[in-house]
């Protein structure tokens, strides 16, 4: 399935891109998208444990099942306001 991964802030800088389309096997979970991103952009590895995940704009646990066309956002610790 095709997934769009979105990067922000420190991770956008580490990856060098704002978004990346990736291919994942059927049955893949949100954590697999993070893992695929970290393999492609090793600079993300260090921050992986502090990264929250959102699937289609909702916070999602790592074992959330993904579907073709889903958007998975990697979220560093937030600091708005």
């Amino acid at each position: 399935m095709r997934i769009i991964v979105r990067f922000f802030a420190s991770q956008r800088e580490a990856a060098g891109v704002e978004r990346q389309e990736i291919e994942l096997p059927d049955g893949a979970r949100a954590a697999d998208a993070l893992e695929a991103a970290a393999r492609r952009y090793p600079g993300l590895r260090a921050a992986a444990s502090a990264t929250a995940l959102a699937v289609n704009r909702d916070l999602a646990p790592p074992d959330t099942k993904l579907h073709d066309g889903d958007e998975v956002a990697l979220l560093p610790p937030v600091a708005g306001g």
Partner: protein
Amino acid sequence: MKQHLHVSAEPLSEPEVAAVIEAPGCGAIVTFVGRVRDRARGRAVQGIEYEAYDEMALDVLRAIAAEARAKFAIADIAIHHRTGRLAVGDASVVVAVAAEHRGAAFDACRYAIDELKKRAPIWKKEFGEGGSVWVEDRP
């Protein structure tokens, strides 16, 4: 007329955000303005860059506004956050609440900014003497 919930690079004006809310019959309008400080964690700050996951940030603000309406006896609420490069003294966020009475207005305003800081997918990069750093707030 501006939206109640707004995340954009436009400069913020507290009176403009307060003007968004409908307040007939309301005896209390409470506004909160968050501004860029010139110091943070012992370092001098020259400016801040805010970045947002725009679509999700609006969803989160929408949820926070709905929760504030459900929890507190308020008539209206507006939340605006600015993104992009801000100078010291610039407003980064404005929350405006209208209620019949001040207790609910203060409580809802506090709730909204506290929840925004915990949940909104927004990040800030501080620029100082030694360079810049993405701030990772810990609760």
